[in-house]
């Protein structure tokens, strides 16, 4: 497997896993408060909707010339990656609270338990809609990542395999423990995804704009190392700034 393909698989896996952990929290809260049948029906409906979106967008993306695709997707991934990285750096340096799956689960559970019962098509409608929306919204992010990464690197199936591996892992562990995956080092995963999105974004937008990397595809390793070093430096600078502000 080439360096680019290995990064592609890993990036799709990590990004998908983060989104799936968030979707699992919502589905579990819905299932425990409103029943498994309605919640799983919501999951199934969302998966069908996501498959339809992928079936439409996937072939459309592969029809676009590679350089134009890399320019647009590189730019989008860079914007997207910098947003992830900013939030992860703010969390790592203490300027933003860490994402707490247990707290989110408790809130979703309380909301779901308090909602009125309304039955439609033999299903508890609140449970169905809650699961459907949770899986659809988080799943759209997975679809976006898989399609953009896969099409720009020329291998949508490999990116989809990364996402599928994440689905098997998160759903398997979620089913086994039947509790939100609060022990997952979520900010570290988000930091890693932000680094990878930013790396791919820099690499592809530069190529798409018509510039050439010294060392061709191998330059992606240099970009990755550079983004990691800069991001860790920013974390340290902001940590020091926060410490000085607290002790002042």
């Amino acid at each position, binding site marked *: 497997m080439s360096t680019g393909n290995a990064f592609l698989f890993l990036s799709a896996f990590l990004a998908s896993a983060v989104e799936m952990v968030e979707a699992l929290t919502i589905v579990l809260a819905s299932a425990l408060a409103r029943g498994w049948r309605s919640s799983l029906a919501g999951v199934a409906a969302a998966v069908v909707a996501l498959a339809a979106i992928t079936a439409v967008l996937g072939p459309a993306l592969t029809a676009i010339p590679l350089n134009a695709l890399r320019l647009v997707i590189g730019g989008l991934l860079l914007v997207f990656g910098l947003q992830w990285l900013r939030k992860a750096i703010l969390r790592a340096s203490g300027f933003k609270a860490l994402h707490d799956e247990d707290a989110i689960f408790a809130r979703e559970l309380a909301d779901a338990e308090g909602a009125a019962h309304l039955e439609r098509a033999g299903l508890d409608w609140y449970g169905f809609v809650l699961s459907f929306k949770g899986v659809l919204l988080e799943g759209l992010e997975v679809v976006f990542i898989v399609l953009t990464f896969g099409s720009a690197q020329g291998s949508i199936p490999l990116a989809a395999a990364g996402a599928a591996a994440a689905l098997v892992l998160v759903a398997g562990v979620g089913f086994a423990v039947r509790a939100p995956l609060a022990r997952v080092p979520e900010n570290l995963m988000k930091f890693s995804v932000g680094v990878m999105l930013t790396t791919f974004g820099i690499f592809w937008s*530069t190529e798409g704009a018509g*510039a050439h990397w010294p060392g061709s595809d191998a330059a992606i390793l240099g970009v990755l190392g550079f983004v990691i070093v800069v991001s860790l430096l*920013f974390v340290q600078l902001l940590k020091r700034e926060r410490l000085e502000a607290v002790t002042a």
Partner: protein
Amino acid sequence: MKWLAAFGRFWWDFVVGDDWRVAVLVAVAIGVTAAAAHSDITAWWIMPVAAPLILWLSLRRAIRSA
């Protein structure tokens, strides 16, 4: 129509997020890279320099408004 607006808002929030300046600055940096590359100027270094600058500006802005 309402559904379409909500769909557009979702993608805007999803990609652009809460700091639209990042998107604008990234677009400018890509434009500069393209202009340099098409003028036969070595341009591969522009995005690796621009991205950390944009990130730092966005971090400073987030901290100020926190």
